[in-house]
Structure formats: structure tokens, C-alpha cells
């Protein structure tokens, strides 16, 4: 009996979460459509989410591009297909690894920071104080973060793509004996607009997921320091899982038409 009761409780809790999250999304979107829009805050968040993520995203993209080139070289040795390293690197980076790596890194950095900040504001009653000062907390706190995140993630990914390809180029020319000019020409000739755009669309979706999970978990945190800690962990974990799931869905939608 207890077993079924547990299943029931878990199912109910899951549906409640989904309902609550849907309401949260609806009020965020309506908050976006109605004035006032806080441009100053959007600017601040672009700086925080985008600019300060550059070093992390750049470094991970560089090493990912490098290791990709190395693995493809070693692996394709068995078929004598080493010459395809630049094409496969550019495809892998723009379509998958650029957006996913950048998405996951920013999820770790930004979703956590947002959840911790809003969570602390929740438990210290700052969010309640906002409403008593006739300011809608969704508009003031959530909308700027969502907008900034959706706008900056594609930019970050565009940069990650370039640095990733550059990482592959460095490894290929310095240790695998490729000719630099030929490598770059092969990369550029091979990659299509669709490869790049698909990655940027993914990035925008990931940006939405990151800010949404940070805000939602922070907004609904309870208790004190422990509650904020739990909200932060949840934000990063749910954002990362949703990014990987959304990546699969988007890939199948974009590339299997």
C-alpha cells in the first residue's frame, strides 16, 4: 500500500511542479510584453551573463576543439581518412560541441549565480519588499535575466565556435603536421550556414533554459541558507539536464526534415 501511496505522492508533486513552472513561464512572457521594461537591468545582466562568461567558454571551447582534432586524427588512422580532420572538427563544433559546451559551462556559472541571488532575496524578504514598493518582481528580476541570457548565449556560442575551430587548427598544425592554409580552407569550404545557424538557435534555447531554471529555483526557494543551497544545486542540475534533452530534440527537428 505504502508503495502506491509513494508513487501517487511523487506523481502529484511532479504535476504540481510542472504546473507551477508553466505559470512561471506564462507570467514571465507576459511580463516581457508589457511595459515597463528595465533596459538598465537588461544591460547589467548582458554584462554579467555574457561578458564575464567569455573566459570560461573560450577556454573550454579551445581545449574541446583541440582534443576533437586529436581524437579524429587517431581514430581515422584506421581508415586512412586523416585528411578529414578539419571538416569533422568544424562540423562537430558548430553543430554540437560549441552550443552544448558553452551551454553547460554557462549553466554552471550563471544558473547557479541567479538561483543563489534570487534565493537569498526570497528568504530575506527582498522579493516581498519589491511588491510593496509597487514593483513586479517578475518584471524587475526575471525578465531582464531571461532577455539577457537569450540574447547573449548565441553570441557566446559564435565566439566558442571560432575558438573551438582555432583549437583544432592549433593542434592539427603544431602536432599533426597539417598545413595551416589548407586546414582553414577545408574548414571554411565545408561548413554551411545551416551548421552555424542550427548551433545559434540551440544556443538561444539553452539561454532561455539557463535563466529560467536559475530564476524559477531561486524564486521558489524556502527556508534559510540551506534552502538557497538546494535551489542553487537544483538550478544547475535541471538546467544541465534540460539543455542535453533539448539538444537532442532540436537536433532531430533541425536535421531530419
Amino acid at each position, binding site marked *: 500500500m505504502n508503495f502506491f501511496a509513494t508513487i501517487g505522492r511523487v506523481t502529484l508533486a511532479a504535476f504540481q511542479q510542472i504546473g507551477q513552472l508553466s505559470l512561471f513561464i506564462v507570467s514571465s512572457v507576459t511580463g516581457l510584453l508589457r511595459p515597463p521594461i528595465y533596459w538598465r537591468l537588461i544591460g547589467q545582466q548582458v554584462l554579467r551573463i555574457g561578458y564575464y562568461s567569455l573566459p570560461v567558454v573560450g577556454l573550454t571551447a579551445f581545449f574541446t576543439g583541440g582534443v576533437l582534432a586529436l581524437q579524429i586524427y587517431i581514430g581515422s588512422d584506421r581508415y586512412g581518412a586523416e585528411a578529414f580532420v578539419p571538416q569533422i572538427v568544424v562540423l562537430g563544433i558548430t553543430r554540437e560541441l560549441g552550443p552544448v559546451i558553452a551551454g553547460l559551462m554557462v549553466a554552471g556559472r550563471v544558473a547557479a549565480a541567479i538561483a543563489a541571488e534570487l534565493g537569498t532575496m526570497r528568504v530575506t*524578504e527582498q522579493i*516581498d519588499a519589491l511588491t*510593496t514598493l*509597487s514593483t513586479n518582481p517578475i518584471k524587475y528580476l526575471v525578465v531582464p535575466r531571461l532577455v539577457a541570457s537569450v540574447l547573449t548565449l548565441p553570441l557566446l556560442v559564435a565566439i566558442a565556435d571560432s575558438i573551438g575551430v582555432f583549437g583544432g587548427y592549433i593542434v592539427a598544425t603544431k602536432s599533426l603536421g597539417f598545413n595551416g592554409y589548407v586546414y582553414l580552407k577545408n574548414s571554411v569550404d565545408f561548413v554551411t550556414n545551416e551548421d552555424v545557424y542550427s548551433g545559434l538557435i540551440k544556443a538561444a534555447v539553452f539561454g532561455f533554459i539557463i535563466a529560467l531554471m536559475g530564476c524559477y529555483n531561486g524564486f521558489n526557494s524556502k527556508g534559510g541558507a540551506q534552502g538557497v543551497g538546494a535551489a542553487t544545486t537544483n538550478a544547475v542540475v535541471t538546467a544541465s539536464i534540460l539543455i542535453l534533452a533539448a539538444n537532442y530534440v532540436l537536433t532531430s527537428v533541425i536535421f531530419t526534415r
Partner: protein
Amino acid sequence: MTKQTSTAKVELRGVKKRFGNKVVLDGVDLKLEHGQSLVVIGGSGTGKSVMIKCVLGIIRPDEGEIYVDGKEVTRLSGRARDAMLKKFGMLFQAAALFDSLPVWENVAFGLIQGRGMGRKQAREIAVETLGKVGLGPEVAKLSPAELSGGMQKRVGLARAIASDPEIIFFDEPTTGLDPIMADVINDLIVSTVDRLGVSALSITHDMVSARKIADRIAMLYQGKIVWDGPTEEIDKSGNEYVEQFIHGRAEGPIKMEVRK
């Protein structure tokens, strides 16, 4: 059957609230008249803060109605609620200052965001309001984390009064202040209420402060208002709960839940 409307500035009728099994408010009836200063006293954890959060819609009551200026506001949301809240100023018990903003922007917040006032003018008003709570202009650019507890409380107070609200709620305005500063704040509350039209509801444990600022005192005990009357009558209330509370006796009908 038509519902009786309310003539008071703020009125609570039969407000109930429970958290899980714990009944906190069990049918609170309370009126704050126009231009009046009402003080609610009551033991720690009796639900005083919960009560004012119900009026502001921060906590949804389970039952009962709340009226502001004769209009029922119990289940308002969205823009109607924003408009209703424009009438209010609120000092939170723990100040609840925005720690990402400097002190002056905290105080000016309602003016800038709520009223759309320019930042420069709002800053001047903020500095002036800080002066009223005994804080100099050098405090204005500090961050709330750099202030002492009592200073934070006073900034919270300045934030609550800066945009000239019609109704002000003070949750323990003098807790954590030294006796002299507490008296300055009492005077400030009295003079704020004396200005035409402002109605104030304060919560306090401090009987000295209550006697000084209140026109009327109400006592909350076990989720209900057990006594409500003019300040002059508090010493002859004939109510044993009030008697015990104002004299601070451990013996009496109010039992503190401490294990000996």
C-alpha cells in the same frame, strides 16, 4: 444578501491562516481608521507579522476578508494589486533591504520605480528622508551590508516613508535600537501620522514605544484579537492577557511553551 462595506482605512474580517496543522490566525477582526495610529502587541510567534503580510497580499489568508478604503482586496492580483499597494509603505521586521543597491537607491526605490521620478531628484529626497531617521548623507552611498542592524532598520523605515504613502505598516520599528534612537523613531512615527491622512499600523513588543505612538492598541493572542481599545485605557483594560503582557510577568494566563 449584500456584503456590508467597510468605512475604515483598513479592515480585517475573520481572517484565518494556517501553516500545515499550525493555526496562526484564527479569525482576526481589526480596524485601522483613517488617520489613526494603531499598535498591535502580542507575544513572539503569535502571528503579528503574518497578519500584516496578509493585508499586503504577501501571504494569502485561508478565510476572511480584507478591505482597504472600503474595497475588498483579499484576492486581488496583477495590476489591481499593484495599484492597491501604491497606498502602502512597509517596514519589514528584518528590514529586507536590497543588498545589490546602495542605501540611497533603497530609500528612493519607490520613487524611481513606482512613481517614475528622475534619479537625481529621488536621490535628494532619499538623503533628506535619511536625515529624518538620524542618518547622515555619508551613509547614502554605502551598501546595506556595511550598516549595523539598527542602521539597517532605520534605512528600512526611511524606505517605507519616502514615497509618502497613505498607509504605513511598521513591523517592530524600535527593536534593536538604543533607547534614545528608539525615542527619535517614536517621534518620527508620531509626526508622520500627524501629517494629514496617514494611517499607521505598528507592531511592537516595546510598551514604552506603544504608549507613545498609539492612539489605539490591540492585542493578538492565539490567533485572535483579545483586546482592542484606546491607549489611555490599556492600564485599566481588565483583561488578564493584556495585564500580563504589559507588566511582563511570566505567571498568568499566557503560558510560554518552555520546558522546565
